[in-house]
């Protein structure tokens, strides 16, 4: 692993809301090309970690680097899928328009999206099987379709690193399989994918790396090596094995 490039490197990161730490002294390295799950109980700081990597939340200490440089210099290398519930789906716009927003980052200020951006957006929608819904108003989409639109928007960002906040939340089994297939394709293409994930059962099946997080980092590494009862117990604070067997 020593000679493997690091996509994301986090050093001594502490984040606090109103002086209450939600992430405490996190060191975390995400090797290039992994498909990583971040797991931990509610309030563990999973979303906060993603948002801090993206510079949406400012840490009170520590640093984040993307391929060795600060995020503000590497914006175009990172795509983001926020939690579905973080936006107002009654906003007056179409699915295609939302996907087009993925191209805004590379356009920069003032420049408007044109035919090139539209083509990128349409291709991304096709990849997630949403092309037929491109002109649909976003409130008329089902929860799974909305999640696919968000995924298509991230694909339109055409980045090296994909950070996703609970992309499987509220989607049906079909959509979940469709999404995980796209994530696996991204990994095959050499991209790095980091996913906040809730369903512990599917971790070994979907991901090759995992990070256990509960305010502090509990463990990080290949799923085969560290996804075990010991780490689960440390992260969730209960005897995990017993809890599952019940």
């Amino acid at each position: 692993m020593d000679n493997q490039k690091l996509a994301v490197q986090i050093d001594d990161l502490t984040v606090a809301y109103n002086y209450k730490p939600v992430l405490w002294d996190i060191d975390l390295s995400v090797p290039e090309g992994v498909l990583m799950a971040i797991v931990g109980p509610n309030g563990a700081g999973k979303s906060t970690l993603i948002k801090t990597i993206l510079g949406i939340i400012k840490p009170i200490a520590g640093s984040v680097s993307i391929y060795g440089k600060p995020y503000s210099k590497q914006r175009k290398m990172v795509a983001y899928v926020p939690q579905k519930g973080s936006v107002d789906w009654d906003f007056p716009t179409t699915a295609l328009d939302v996907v087009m927003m993925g191209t805004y980052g590379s356009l920069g200020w003032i420049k408007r999206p044109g035919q090139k951006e539209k083509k990128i957006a349409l291709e991304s929608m096709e990849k997630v099987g949403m092309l037929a819904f491109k002109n649909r108003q976003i409130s008329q989409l089902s929860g799974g379709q909305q999640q696919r639109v968000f995924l298509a928007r991230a694909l339109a960002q055409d980045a090296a690193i994909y950070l996703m906040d609970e992309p499987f939340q509220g989607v049906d089994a079909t959509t979940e399989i469709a999404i995980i297939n796209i994530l696996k394709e991204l990994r095959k293409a050499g991209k790095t994918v980091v996913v906040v994930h809730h369903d512990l059962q599917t971790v070994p099946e979907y991901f090759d790396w995992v990070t256990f997080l509960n305010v502090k980092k509990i463990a990080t590494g290949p799923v085969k090596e560290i996804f075990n009862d010991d780490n689960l117990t440390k992260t969730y604070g209960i005897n995990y094995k017993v809890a599952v067997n019940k």
Partner: protein
Amino acid sequence: MSNPQIEIQLIAALVAMACAIPGVFLVLRKMALISDAISHAILPGIVIGFFITQDLNSPLLILLAALTGVITVVLVEFIQKTGLVKEDTAIGLVFPVLFSIGVILIAKNANDVHLDIDAVLLGELAFAPFDRLMVRGTDWGPKSLWVMGSILLITISLLLLFFKELKVSTFDAGLSSAIGISPVIMHYGLMSISSITVVGAFDAVGAILVVALMIAPAATAYLLTEDLKKMIGLSLLFGVSSAISGYWLANILDASISGSIATTLGVLFLAVYLFAPKKGLISVLYRQKQQKIEVSLITFLLHLNRHEEESERHINHLQEHINWHEVRARTVLNLAEKNNLVEIKNNVVSLTEKGLTFTEKSLEYIINNKDEKIEPMKEDFFLFRG
């Protein structure tokens, strides 16, 4: 029409347009209440600005007062960030304080200042043509026409330049921040423009009614369209048409122009709220009723589909089996028959070929929610139109 009449309508239309554009984004950002706060809290800014400049249309006064508006927003956010009170409480705490400072300032200096509370709250459009822009003895028209025209021009240019940025930061502040389009800059930009517009407009329509011009056109347009550009276009249209028809209403009633404009906006909203084709109250109620009947229809068809035995499908038994009122049972039966979904032979109801496929397809649709299964039926049935 006389010259002042045309000028008043022109000013009213410009004010309406300048208010409608930031109004759309305030409504979409669920910040309508902030416009109310700004419109009141700018009063001390206006009074102090007036002490300094002695001219209600001076650009310096407008900037000073607009600054008070932005300070209001900052104070509201500051109080809110303490986590002790919610946003609406913070708004309710900040703007009355600033407003009352303005009221006291006016009262203390009422003798030497040509500025009174009535004019500030309600404005007086009818007087606007009296205050004219004179350059070297030439009359260039009413000052407020130039002030509002400039504000509108700035607003439109900013809208055209930053449409994409406004859209993404309004819809998804997280993504906006991540891709380097700072939602904080967009937020304060919008707040500054809203403040400047309110200050420019208050002279004409007053601090209270300017809120109506910001919020009502956008709220009305929101009910009619699902496209941001169209929403802005409709807001402009509603604002201008209300301004002009409000002017004539005031003329007929011999009443306050700003009051009549706000009333027109209210009536327009009410009409759209009732009759809008998709989101309107009447169409929503109609759709709910249709859906109720259609749910009953499908329940009924599924019942027929499940029961081979004739006793279960006898017309006299059906009503008690499904446990419906007679009227509803008859409506559903008639609907099914009219659509050739069922046939009645010897008082026994059976599914037709069409009814059978329909039932199977809707079952499949209910189970796996796949749109393509139901496409052919969409024209006839509300239930599947999404």
